[in-house]
């Protein structure tokens, strides 16, 4: 399901010395040396023999399983001025990711084996880290005909989604839930009732009332979440809910999971860190779909992340050309970047204030998304492929427009000082990034 250069080159040899090694799934939290031989974790212990390997000083740093981002817009084909496989995966590596999943709402849409095939081909030469490609649920993401899911899955699609758009017709949604099961891949849903969100620029509430923006009410998301959970329950199908933003959606998901519905979900760093109050600045880098919501919604998302209702953090990294965002808020496209700032944002805004434990953030950025899509979970264990991230949680850094590896800089964090920055990323046995 993942594609890249891995397997083409021998794995790296290295020793990370004296870092706090944190892997909740392995029940590991200790200051240790970790040795990697030929891209595979070979030894964990104290004062390990470097054996001539490259030694990386991890003192004072945290070593964790590298991150998996289940929601990235690589913009290829069609938007190469905004991002490419090379720039997007380099940005991901700098953000501590060892794998990412790319969304199919490109131009043309990834809905046929020819488009998917060329992406997989390009990833073999361009990708800095392994990348998976989701294919569309419906042809052209137009919501009328299903794509050839079995063929696309056999060719290597990592899952199916019409992200950016909902599957509006309930009957078609039902068919997709029935059919996709035989592919063994996940169906990922963008939940938005389009007649309720029509024209919406930001969350509907006191701030939109004051600013005069057409509201995009939280119920536009939650009615669709409730519909899709009902259909999944009826069909006993699995589904993954993309970028949840509303308290009612979290409540509906929690209730459905308690009844045994096989639903997973993700949430973005910006929805976890911000509320609609931030939109008062009228900064177009605060415009995204779904929109930033109220404080009550934000805390419901944080609670959902903590109790595992929401198992994954996803950046929804959505690069946009500079001129597209240098317009009045209403004219700007939806979307913000996030690959290079996700951990630092969560560390600074959730871990440091004591809202979410570090272990939970690390788990939801790595194991959680891998499990949601049935990918191999990054582990720090002897014999496991090396997928590691070394994190500096002490040194403050400032998010600058010219500091990105991404081709776009439409970050909601520009100018902010953050803590928590990856200094080394090992992806599928190879060093993909070193600060």
């Amino acid at each position, binding site marked *: 399901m993942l594609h890249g250069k891995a397997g083409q080159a021998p794995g790296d040899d290295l020793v990370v010395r004296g870092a706090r090694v944190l892997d909740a799934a392995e029940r590991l939290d200790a200051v240790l040396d970790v040795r990697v031989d030929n891209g595979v974790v070979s030894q964990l212990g104290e004062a390990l023999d470097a054996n001539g390997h490259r030694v990386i000083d991890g003192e004072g740093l945290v070593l964790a399983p590298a991150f998996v981002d289940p929601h990235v817009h690589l913009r290829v084909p069609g938007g190469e001025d905004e991002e490419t496989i090379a720039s997007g995966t380099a940005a991901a590596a700098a953000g501590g990711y060892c794998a990412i999943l790319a969304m199919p709402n490109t131009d043309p849409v990834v809905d046929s084996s020819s488009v998917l095939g060329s992406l997989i081909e390009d990833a073999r030469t361009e990708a800095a880290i392994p990348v998976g490609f989701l294919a569309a649920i419906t042809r052209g993401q137009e919501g009328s005909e299903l794509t050839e899911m079995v063929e696309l899955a056999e060719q290597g699609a990592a899952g199916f989604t019409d992200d950016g758009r909902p599957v509006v017709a309930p009957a078609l949604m039902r068919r997709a839930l029935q059919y996709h099961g035989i592919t063994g891949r996940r169906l990922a849903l963008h939940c938005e009732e389009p007649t309720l969100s029509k024209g919406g620029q930001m969350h*509907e509430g*006191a701030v939109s*009332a004051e600013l005069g923006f057409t509201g995009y009410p939280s119920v536009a998301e939650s009615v669709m979440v409730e519909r899709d959970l009902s259909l999944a329950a009826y069909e006993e199908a699995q589904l993954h809910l993309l970028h949840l933003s509303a308290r009612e959606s979290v409540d509906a998901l929690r209730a459905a999971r308690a009844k045994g519905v096989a639903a997973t979900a993700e949430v973005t760093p910006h929805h976890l860190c911000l509320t609609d109050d931030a939109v008062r*600045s009228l900064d177009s880098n605060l415009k995204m779909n779904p929109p930033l919501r109220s404080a009550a919604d934000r805390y419901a998302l944080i609670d959902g992340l903590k109790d595992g209702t929401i198992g994954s953090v996803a950046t929804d990294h959505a690069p946009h050309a500079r001129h597209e965002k240098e*317009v009045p808020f*209403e004219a700007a496209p939806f979307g913000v970047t996030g690959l290079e700032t996700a951990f630092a944002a969560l560390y600074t805004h959730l871990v440091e204030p004591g809202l979410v434990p570090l272990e939970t953030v690390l788990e939801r950025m790595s194991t959680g998304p891998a499990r949601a899509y049935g990918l191999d979970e990054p582990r720090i264990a002897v014999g496991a492929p090396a997928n590691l991230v070394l994190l500096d949680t002490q040194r403050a850094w400032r998010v600058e427009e010219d500091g990105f590896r991404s081709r776009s800089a439409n970050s909601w964090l520009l100018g902010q000082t953050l803590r928590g920055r990856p200094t080394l990323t090992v992806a599928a046995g190879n060093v993909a990034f070193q600060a």
Partner: protein
Amino acid sequence: MGQIHVMREGYLPPREPPQRHLISIGDLEREDVERLLSTAASFSRSLEREVKKLPTLRGRTIVNVFYESSTRTSSSFELAAKRLSADTMSIKAAGSSVDKGESLKDTALTLGAYDPDVIVIRHPQIGAPHLVARYTDARVVNAGDGKHQHPTQALLDLYTIREEFGRIEGVHVAIVGDVLHSRVARSNAQALALMGAKVTLVGPPPLIPRGIEALGCEVSYDIGAIADSDVIYVLRMQRERMAEGANYVPSLREYTARWGVTPERVRPGQKVMHPGPMNRGVEIDPRVADAADALIETQVRAGLVVRMAVLYDLLTTGPVPVEAPEPLEVA
């Protein structure tokens, strides 16, 4: 976006003060409004003189850029600038490079190259004045941005109310109609609340935005709620903004029957205001519009002196003189 400081003296750091703009009522303090209204009053006295032109802003350049049609706002800004002897230039979107697809940023950079002292902008999109403020060195006056703000309208309405009642504090104003699509309603509710007036928003539920009470006003869906007010402020029923099939109200007929301001619903002595242009027979009965208690023409006259005061205030830093400035000597 960099933070925009707007007419807030206390905000100014000691060196290199940030540019002063008038973009939103929310950026003003009560004393800013007091100062602007008393400046407007002094200009009003000066306009009673035979020679109405004042030399105050001689040599200054004021550019009016209107991306939406407007009669009273654009003419009143232009006349205000001329009364203060500023050089003015008015640009309408139709027939300009905007028609050729030029971005607002590029238009702002182009106009900025002439070093104007003030850019007055009306634009259909919220935040357009902020964008212009970001890309030029000029002081920016918002003459209406989408459904967001129309601060000079709110100031002229405050001026009108103060002229009529001698005060603003404690005056009860009922704002009636399509609040959802109205920048006038938003600016006025904020400005009136800032000055201590009581505000009640009245209209059909779909046209009252959810959460608007946070501006410091009350909400009623019953036209009867206007009975207790000192001022009935009637909003234009913005047909051009009512998208087809949106169903905010079933019909204009039902709107007029249920929320129209008719003589039967107006108590003697109650004052009636309207930002114009009016839809006679829709939101306001013609008999109400033409009655002696209507302040609608007073509002238009107030618009001139208030806009003079805004331009003057932005371009001068010292305190406002109590006496009106000397009139320009005409050769």
